[in-house]
Each structure stands twice: as C-alpha cells, then as structure tokens.
C-alpha cells in the first residue's frame, strides 16, 4: 500500500512538474507542446540510429537564457512547425563584442575561433569541442553557478572529459589536491591555459609561450593575499625574472628554463614530495635535462633568491659587502679628487716651492 502511495505521489509530482514547467501562455509553449517537450521526440539520422530532439525545458528555465525565446537563437525558424531542419546555431551570433542584446563577452568568446579548439573544429575534427561541449546546449549556467560545468570546481572535470590522462595527472598535483579540498582559488585548467584564447605554447599569444609562463604563474604566485593564505612563498616569480634563466627568457633565448621546465605542469608537486622533480634528491636529474654535468651539487644552495633580500643567505652578504665597498670607495675617490684639486689650488696660489 505504501509503495502504491509513493508511486502515485511520484506520478502526480511528475505531472505537476510538466504542467508547471511551461504554461500555455509561455511563448515557447508552441515548440514544446507538440514536439520538443516530449522526451521520446527524436529523428532518425541513419537507419536504426536516432538523435534525440527533446529539450529539457525545466533545465532551460534554470539557465542564464531562461527569458529567451527558442527563436531568439534558432532565428531561421519562421513558422511552427518548421518545414526544414533549422541550421546549426552558434553562440557567437549573440556573444560578440558590441552586441546589443546584452550577451556577456567579458571572457572574449570570439577568441575561440583562433584557439586550438576553434581551429580544429573549423578543420572538421570530430573530436574538437565547440561552445556546447563546455557550456552545454540548453542548460547554460553562469560560471559562478556551482552546477555549471565551467564553475571553477568543475572545470578540470569538464576539460578532463576529453583530456582524461591530463585530468588524472592534475588531480594528483598540489593544485588538484587543493581543489579537491574545496580550495577554489587553487589553479584550474583555465587559469593557466585561458578559456577561449587557448593557443598552443609555441604561439607567442599563448599564456604558456615560454616568455609568458612566468607571468601566467605570477597571476596567483605573485599575489600576496592568495600566497599568504596558502602559506606559499610569493617572491619566486620576481626572483626568477632576476635570475640567469629569467633574463635569458626575457631576451628571447627560449631554450632557457622557465617555471615548468623544473616544476612540471599538470602534475606540479611540492618540493617535499619525493615524486616531485624539485625534490632535492631529484634535482640532479631535473637540472640534468639541460646541464649534463649536474650532480647532487645543484641541490646545495637556495633557489629563487633575490640578492638584496636576507633570505638569499651568503649571496645577500656578498651583495651587501659589495654595496658598502662601492659606496665607501666612491666616497674615498671623491675625497681624493677634492683633496688633490685643493692641494693644487693651494700651491698654485702660493707659487711653486717644490
């Protein structure tokens, strides 16, 4: 009896739900009533193969587009029911710079076309993602919505649905671990790779071009507030830029090491983790990628030092010694010159009595 009651309630709520999801006065009702609101509405794309044409309107009504009409996007549908199959639509038909309908463009969605994904899609690569692969089709939610696939905490999983191996590597990294511990300010894919302007690393426009890597990491790792909260040193990027490698990179010697050369990228681990390339015992190997003679000697010293900072240890003292020596000697020479000129002036005035 109880089971029957439960079943009845489910049926009633389902019926109510479908009744509530769109009323007769909803302008989209015509699309849904007869056709797209029916869950088994489908089209045979090949013999025996069907494509669902069902639109979950309840989902749609929770999306950012809830106030839009179907025909706002499917603009070529001029009569309902439509006679021809509507053309593929593209988000950029609204989300372009300067659009008048108020479609947000803060993340520059038009750059997608130039990106690795956009180019592969344009080539006809069946695996290349289009907007809908990350944003979904009818249930697009804002990036701030925890149910959105592009919500920070969901981004790795979204990217990982195609990049599975990288996803598993990322989950092991300090960034992935932090994210799993609900630290949302930890780096997710798009923090380094960007969202729409995602270029291959050899493209100078890429956030991961050798000359841009340090600045990309600096977006968080030079942020005093974030690094203090996480207990991570904050001057590493600044020190890198002053270092031999950083200077070489700045002057387009691209073979020089940047952050990822030593730290890795998807699977970045703490220097205390024995699996990390910057674990002291692994440094000889890591440096050895470029410097064949590297031995355990490379671990003997401090990394990411700023000479003028006491944290630099002996280098700081050498730096201070030279600073003061330079000041004292400059003052000494100026004194010497003034004395010499004074002596000459004095003896010239009194006549030469050599």
């Amino acid at each position, binding site marked *: 009896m109880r089971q029957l009651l439960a079943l009845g309630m489910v049926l009633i709520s389902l019926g109510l739900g479908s009744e509530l999801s769109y009323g007769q006065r909803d302008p989209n009702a015509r699309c849904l009533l007869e056709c797209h609101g029916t869950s088994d509405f489908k089209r045979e794309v090949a013999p025996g193969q069907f494509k669902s044409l069902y639109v979950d309107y309840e989902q749609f009504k929770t999306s950012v587009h809830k106030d839009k009409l179907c025909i706002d996007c499917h603009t070529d549908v001029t009569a309902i029911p439509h006679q021809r199959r509507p053309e593929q639509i593209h988000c950029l038909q609204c989300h372009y710079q300067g659009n008048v309908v108020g479609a947000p463009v803060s993340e520059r969605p038009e750059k997608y076309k130039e990106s690795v994904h956009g180019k592969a899609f344009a080539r006809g690569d069946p695996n290349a993602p289009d907007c809908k692969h990350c944003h979904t089709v009818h249930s697009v939610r804002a990036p701030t919505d925890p149910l959105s696939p592009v919500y920070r905490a969901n981004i790795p999983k979204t990217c990982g649905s195609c990049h599975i191996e990288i996803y598993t590597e990322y989950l092991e990294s300090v960034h992935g671990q932090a994210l799993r511990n609900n630290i949302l300010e930890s780096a997710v894919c798009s923090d380094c790779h960007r969202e729409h302007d995602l270029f291959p690393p050899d493209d100078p426009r890429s956030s991961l071009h050798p000359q841009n890597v340090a600045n990309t990491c600096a977006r968080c790792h030079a942020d005093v507030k974030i690094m203090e909260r996480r207990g991570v040193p904050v001057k590493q990027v600044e020190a890198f830029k002053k270092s*031999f490698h950083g200077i070489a990179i700045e*002057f387009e010697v691209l073979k020089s090491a940047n952050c990822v050369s030593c730290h890795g990228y998807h699977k970045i681990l703490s220097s205390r983790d024995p699996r990390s390339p910057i674990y002291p015992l692994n440094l000889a190997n890591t440096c050895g990628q470029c410097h*064949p003679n590297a031995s355990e*000697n*490379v671990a*003997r010293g401090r990394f990411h030092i700023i000479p003028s900072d006491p944290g630099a240890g002996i*280098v700081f003292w*050498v730096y201070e010694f030279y600073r003061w020596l330079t000041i004292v000697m400059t003052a000494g020479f100026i004194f010497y010159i003034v004395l010499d000129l004074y002596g000459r002036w004095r003896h010239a005035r009194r006549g030469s009595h050599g």
Partner: protein
Amino acid sequence: MAKEQIKELSEERTIERINLQLRAQHFALMVSVTLLILTGLALLYRESALGRLLIALEGGFEARGTIHRVAAGLLMATAFYHLLYILFSRQGHEEFMQMLLTPQDFKDYAATVLYDLGVRAHKPQCARYSYREKFQYWAFAFFVIVMIISGFILWFHDWFFGILPKWAFDVAIAVHSGTGTLLLIVLTLWHLYLVHLRPGRFPIDWSFWDGKISEKQLYEEHPLEYQQLKEKGIL
C-alpha cells in the same frame, strides 16, 4: 735644483718612458676592459634606457654575450702574456720589481695628503713607479684575477656543475657584477682622473699611445727617476 732651472726644463723635449711592450699590453687591456664593461653594464642595467641602448648597439642580447666572451678571451690572453713577461723577460722582471709595494709607498701617500693639506712644505720624492701607479697596478691585478675566476665559473658553468655547489654560482654572479661595478668606479674616478682628467693633463695625455713624457713632467712627478736618468746621461 733651483727654481729657475725647473722653469728651463722643456715641455717640448720628451723621453720614451713606457716601452712598446708595456704600451701594447696596456692597449690590449684597455680595449678588452672597455668592451667588457660596456657589455657587462648592458646586462646589469638591462632594464634602464642606457642598458637597452647598449644592448641595441652591441647587436642584441646574444651578440652582447659573444662580444663579452671574446673580450674576456683577450683579457685572459693579455694577463697570461703579462705573467710570462714579468717572469721570463729581464726587462719585464725589472719593471715588476719596481712595482712591488714597500712601506715607503704608504709613507709617500701620507706625505702627499699632508702636502695637499698644507701641513708639509714638500712633496714626497717619487721614483719611476710612485704609490699612485703601484696602488692602481695592484688593485687592477686583484680585480682582474677576481673577474677572471668568477667569469670563468659562469662561462663554463656546465663543467663546473660537477664540482661546485649551487650557491657558488650565485656567489660568482654577485662577485662578478659587484667587482665589475667597482672596477668601473676605480677606472673613472681614479685612473682616468689621474692620467687624463686632472689639471695639467686634461683632456688627454697621449703617453698611453707613444709612451712619451716631457722632461718637466718627469721631473715634477718622478723626481728620483729624473735624477737617475740624468746620472746615466740619458737625459
């Protein structure tokens, strides 16, 4: 010597005081150190307009490094040649022995300070190499040794990686840039002032090129050497 006689000393009549050997060594040193300082400063001040200008003039970042290393090669060759010269050439050895510091040099320096201040009435009597030349020679010798050692470590870092700890390279960078800056100050405020910029020498003293000094200048600055040459009958 009486005052009248000094006035008779010719400013026209000159004597070759610095031989061709020393002039050639000095010239190689001058060229290499100038190039090293210009290319080194470019790197040290890469973020300033001066640094950017120097890098552009030197043909870009990597060309700058190449010029620096070529000049370093010239400097090391000069230093090595100089070492052979003072060890195995009688002439070079004699010059070097006169360069050795003695307590008298420090007394001479103190006496000069007192003379300039007007405490003493007489200038100290200096020989062929006065405290001025000696102090500069030894300062440069020390600086060049420091620069060659630290520069060598940085140039051949891949080889030294097997021997030296990481901090030694960081120290080498600090020493190389610190000594380089110091060298620039010593060269401009001390050496250039003494030989070219001070009253009586300005704007340029050509003795670095022809090695010649006038009798008058020789008498005023190196009275003991003047007397010695007079006794030998060379003057």
